């Protein structure tokens, strides 16, 4: 364990003079915190300072200890060692109420809102009775805080009827009402559209002017570089240091996170595409009004578009997850009828959903069982499973895909995002699908795992499979696809064949036309 004094994050910031908030007093100081759980040293040593009026990004691979660190600050976990100081005073927070009293508000990916209550009721929930206001007063103050944030939300609208972005803003408004001095956000942009992300950072910039310290976790390096003042990097349960952002290049940041230099962000291998494996003609249903395209053997077909353009609906129709209203699907030239995912899987189509936790994995089952679910027929006779062969097959993939599991019986919920995704890839590799559809293959997974995922996609294409890849990250679409389709309002509005020469602006233009 390094002595706390040698930890770079506790040293005076060498580049601080160049940042806006250089002289501002600290709102949060974490010194030498360590935290272990049974069997896991989640944080070895972490130190971190957030100043008043700064936007501070916390980055690192999954499992680096970012979430645990945040939970130590908000009192959800008690540190084994080290101290947490807020506004210059050591504090011991034991629950979210304490945290609010101490001026800390945390917004997690799952919001702490009650869906069946209105925005106003949620804003004033949990206040002591003596602070209770009458409804009119509450409504007035709700309007006031929404106005201050520059957002148009009806205080009486039920939270469950609000879009995700607005729900998040209700949480921010609640933090403002509680007079929070430190706002902590865990991957605030993961579920937002690009426009909503801009709105959110506009509001955060406004909060920064009000001297509020903001600490956010993000996997999207673009937004870290665009919006954060400083960044703290965590790796393997330790903070490596804090850097003012203008001084750091993207490559340097990635290297710090991964711990080794990366050759390129996208290891694309371009190969000659073969015959059409998947042909879709006039498919419609859900948001999809009409879609006609073909995906060829050995190619990665990217599908770009805004959230809500119908990309996910399209692949769900192909996979049989939803019933199409019309259209035909051909596999290797043969028309096929697909009424359910079961049909699709038998015919060699597989889908890696964007929402791994809810639509990909059965989290309570073991990694092995999740891997085996659609493939049980490979190791069973009249329904009787040969468990030894099943386990051997799984261990083969654990090794070849470098899946980090404690063992085949580890519950899927305990795997990191990247390893969960690899587990699903292993599942569909074993099922030997001809068409592999990825919906946001790298959402929520860290830089190192992203790279490995790209290598896997290359590998699948090299085996002659047709890959369809939906992604909201334009660099990823352009970096990994051989051909790109752009969707807008349920239709395919454009195709880019010269991907290497295309720009993000070109794609965006097609996506909003």
């Amino acid at each position, binding site marked *: 364990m390094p002595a706390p004094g040698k930890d770079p994050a506790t040293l005076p910031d060498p580049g601080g003079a160049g940042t806006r908030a250089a002289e501002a007093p600290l709102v949060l100081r974490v010194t030498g915190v360590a935290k272990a*759980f*049974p*069997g*896991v040293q*989640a944080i070895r040593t972490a130190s971190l300072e957030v100043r008043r009026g700064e936007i501070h990004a916390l980055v690192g691979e999954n*499992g680096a200890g970012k979430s*645990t660190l945040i*939970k130590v600050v908000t009192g*959800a*976990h008690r540190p084994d060692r080290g101290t947490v100081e807020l506004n210059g005073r050591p504090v011991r927070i034991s629950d979210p109420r304490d945290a609010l009293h101490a001026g800390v508000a945390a917004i997690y990916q799952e919001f702490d809102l009650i869906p069946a209550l209105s925005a106003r009721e949620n804003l004033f929930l949990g206040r002591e009775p003596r602070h209770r206001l009458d409804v009119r007063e509450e409504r007035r103050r709700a309007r006031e805080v929404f106005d201050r944030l520059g957002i148009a939300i009806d205080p009486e609208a039920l939270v469950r009827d609000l879009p995700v972005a607005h729900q998040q803003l209700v949480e921010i408004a609640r933090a403002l009402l509680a007079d929070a001095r430190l706002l902590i956000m865990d991957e605030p942009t993961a579920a937002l559209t690009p426009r909503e992300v801009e709105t959110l950072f506009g509001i955060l910039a406004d909060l920064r002017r009000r001297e509020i310290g903001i600490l956010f976790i993000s996997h999207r390096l673009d937004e870290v570089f665009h919006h954060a003042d400083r960044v703290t990097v965590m790796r393997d349960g330790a903070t490596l240091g804090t850097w003012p952002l203008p001084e750091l290049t993207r490559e340097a940041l990635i290297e710090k996170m991964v711990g080794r230099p990366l050759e390129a962000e996208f290891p694309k291998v371009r190969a000659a595409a073969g015959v059409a494996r998947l042909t879709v003609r006039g498919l419609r249903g859900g948001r999809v009004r009409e879609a006609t395209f073909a995906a060829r053997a050995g190619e990665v077909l990217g599908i770009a578009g805004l959230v809500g353009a119908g990309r996910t609906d399209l692949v769900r129709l192909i*996979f049989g*997850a939803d019933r199409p209203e019309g259209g035909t699907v051909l596999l290797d030239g043969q028309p096929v009828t697909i009424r*359910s*995912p*079961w049909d*699709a*899987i*038998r015919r060699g189509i597989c*889908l890696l*959903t964007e929402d791994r936790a*809810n*639509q*990909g*994995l*059965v*989290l*309570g*089952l073991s990694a092995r*069982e999740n891997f*085996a*679910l*659609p493939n*049980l*027929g490979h190791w*069973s006779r009249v*329904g*009787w*499973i040969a*468990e030894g062969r099943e386990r051997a097959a799984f261990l083969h993939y654990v090794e070849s895909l470098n899946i980090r599991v404690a063992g085949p019986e580890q519950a899927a*919920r*305990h*795997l*990191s995002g990247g390893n969960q995704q690899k587990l699903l890839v292993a*599942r569909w590799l074993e099922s030997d699908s001809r068409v592999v559809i990825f919906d946001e293959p790298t959402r929520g997974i860290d830089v190192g795992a992203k790279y490995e995922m790209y290598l896997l996609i290359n590998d699948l294409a090299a085996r002659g499979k047709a890959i369809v890849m939906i992604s909201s990250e334009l660099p990823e679409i352009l970096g990994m696809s051989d051909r790109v389709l752009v969707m807008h309002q349920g239709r395919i509005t454009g195709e880019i064949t010269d991907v290497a020469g295309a720009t993000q602006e070109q794609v965006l233009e097609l996506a909003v036309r």
Partner: protein
Amino acid sequence: MNAFSRFLSQYGMLFVLLLLCVFFSLATLREQHPAGAGAARALERQIVAAAAPDGAHAGAAVLIAARAGEADLRFARELARRLAARGRPAAAVVTGDPAALREALESFAGAGRDLLVATLETDAPIVRGVLASFPALTATPILTPPAHRWPTFLLADNLRNVANQIAVIAILAIGMTMVIVTGGIDLSVGSLIALAAVVTAGLIGHLGGEAATAGGMLLAGAAAIGICALIGSFSGLMITRFAVPPFIATLGMMQVTSGIAYILSQGKPIYRVPDGLVTLGRGTEPLLGLPYAVLMMAGLYLVAHLLMSRTTLGRYVYAVGGNAEAARLAGVRVRAVQMFVYVTCAALAGLGGVVMASQLKSGAPTYGLMYELYVIAAVVVGGTSLSGGEGRILGTLIGAFIIAVIQNGMNLTNVESYTQKVVLGLVILGAVLLDRMKHRGLGRRRAAH
């Protein structure tokens, strides 16, 4: 903490069951007076020794006195057989009430011959009372089998009783475990018991009544199970096709089924069945004396355990309960799996109804009342989570036995029935608490990642 919670979750309930057995064994430790064939064995030696030429009552005539109950008859017959085999046949065997004994003794009172009465400890005071009314016989010795200290709870008869009484609930709990693992619930099982019992008894009535053949009875039972499976498929259809919540769908079917049972039986018990019907419910196999119902229960548990742990279908059941949408997108035919569990659950409830009709030698629409709650309790006490996705068949067996042992133990220790309800309720709450603790442990580990 980790190892401890794992131990609790895997073996906790077995441990609780053993503890309960030890507790009730100690609480019911008392003087035991043998009965039945065992008593005859013990008494044979005493009588032969006493009536031997050099014994205390050399040459005395032996009179065996017993009541007319099943165990008493077994005692009397076995003792008579054994004495005859030893060349000292009993002079008389009296089975029945004190009047019959008095009648038999009258002939001995006049004969002036030495007499020895062999009887059970429980009947000795009555025999003594009757002897007192014959002046010539007041000194007649009464021999009873020797007593020994042993827990009433652990008597073979009692253990057999525990197993036999829980058999119906335990059989139903198999299907209920599968349903609950998929994240559902089936409230109609109690009514299905009644319907199956009524259909069984009613059909036997049509197939010859008291004169029905074994084949007829089998046919009636199979038909009852088939009808229950059909009703289960209807519940399954409501749940899978029309997305009616299982609680509501089976609540409705619970009323419908119960109503049908009342209509079919016109609200009255059906007794027109042959004696042979009780073989399944009360009969025991000759080797170890295990009741057939218990053997069947054990067999079903073995099959269900293998099904749930070693087959693709079992794996799908867990997957559907863990996350139905993820399972569907992994190619599991979720509706077929749900259909399977509801049909299986209903068919097993039907089998439970047949067993109950056999145990009670009749069919009535009042059977199985509130059984769904006992069955669910057994499943929950056995460690299956009501939120679905986890649970073990053998855990349910343990859960059923915990309930049976507590009920039986409280009966033996004379706890009144009102108090029994309170205790059983607390046991169920305790089991759920244990389940929550287990989950909190999981939550803590999840937070580490």
